């Protein structure tokens, strides 16, 4: 009796179509929940999609390689999306040029502290070298962070999760923290949000203030460049 549906599952679970469809379906649902909660940081669609899909793979005993045969079509678009970050940078070039010195200073100092703090802290906590390397690029947008992680032969999957967690924590903490510190310059607030917590911080900044959002987007694009130059350098200096 149970033979036909079971063999159908065996067939479908090996096809890319099933896993691509499930990935998009889970994300669409998680994104709908996120929108319904007015983009609350804790309803982050990436975080929830990841654990739901991981649980589904675990329950069905599916190997990650099988899953990835379908999900790779989505994964491939990370590269073009990184190139596309040039567009907001180009469109806001006047805003960039008008605050170029504060931005460059904040970019270099912020990028160094984002990498340095997590590498030193992770080392002090005694985390294995492979984990430390995977955490180093966590403040840049996940596509770039995973590229950096790959070029260090660390773990891109761990980097992806660390990046998403960093984004969510930054998005939750940035507004209360800046209010407590009495920082009212929305350019500075947005720039910090985009630099420390990339796209998720940028989305949060846009909800709070338009200027903050633009500066967050600029910080995210610029930090993608600077961090990919700095991480290999920092790793050779801080870890030996």
């Amino acid at each position, binding site marked *: 009796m149970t033979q036909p549906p079971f063999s159908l599952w065996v067939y479908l679970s090996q096809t890319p179509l099933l896993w691509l469809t499930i990935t998009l379906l889970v994300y669409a649902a998680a994104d709908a929940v996120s929108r319904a909660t007015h983009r609350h940081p804790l309803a982050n669609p990436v975080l929830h999609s990841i654990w739901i899909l991981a649980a589904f793979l675990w329950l069905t005993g599916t190997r990650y390689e099988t*899953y990835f045969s379908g999900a790779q079509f989505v994964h491939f678009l990370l590269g073009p999306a*990184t190139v596309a970050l040039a567009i907001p940078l180009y469109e806001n070039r006047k805003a960039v040029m008008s605050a170029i010195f504060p931005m460059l200073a904040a970019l270099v100092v*912020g990028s160094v502290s984002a990498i340095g703090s997590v590498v030193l802290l992770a080392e002090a*906590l005694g985390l294995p070298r492979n*984990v430390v390397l995977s955490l180093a690029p966590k403040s840049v947008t996940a596509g770039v962070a995973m590229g950096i992680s790959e070029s260090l032969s660390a773990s891109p999957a761990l980097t992806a*999760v660390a990046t998403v967690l960093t984004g969510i924590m930054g998005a939750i903490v940035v507004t209360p923290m800046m209010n407590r510190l009495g920082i009212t310059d929305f350019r500075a607030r947005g720039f910090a949000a985009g630099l420390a917590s990339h796209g998720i911080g940028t989305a949060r900044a846009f909800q709070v203030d338009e200027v903050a959002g633009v500066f967050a987007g600029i910080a995210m694009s610029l930090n993608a460049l600077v961090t990919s130059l700095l991480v290999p350098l920092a790793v050779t200096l801080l870890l030996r």
Partner: protein
Amino acid sequence: MIAGLCVILICQLAGEAIVRGLGVPVPGPVLGLLFMLLLLLLRDRFPSLAFGPLKDDAIVGVARGLLANLSLLFIPAGVGIIQLINVLLEHGWAIVFALAVSVIATLFITAGTFLIVSKLMKRRDAGGAS
């Protein structure tokens, strides 16, 4: 749309080729980002470059579409965490702690640097004017 996507892919391809060829320690797409930016700035400088997808908003349309769904693109790699479940069970809390402290420190230092330099610039400009 296809023409716009082509320009983006060509920038990425150029980036990847240079990274592989010269052994630059930067992800290929990041170099592609720089090429894309340069291409758009050159187009504004030299009107003869403004043809096809560089003339209309084809690139902007594709880029908007990609960036609007940026979150989706992280998911396949993120699900790879199931291969690292042992690392998470052993070091999960230490990782979360390191990330939390680092993100708070980064927010504080970045906003602080921006404000300090912005004030210094204003003071210098005011000093220059008087």
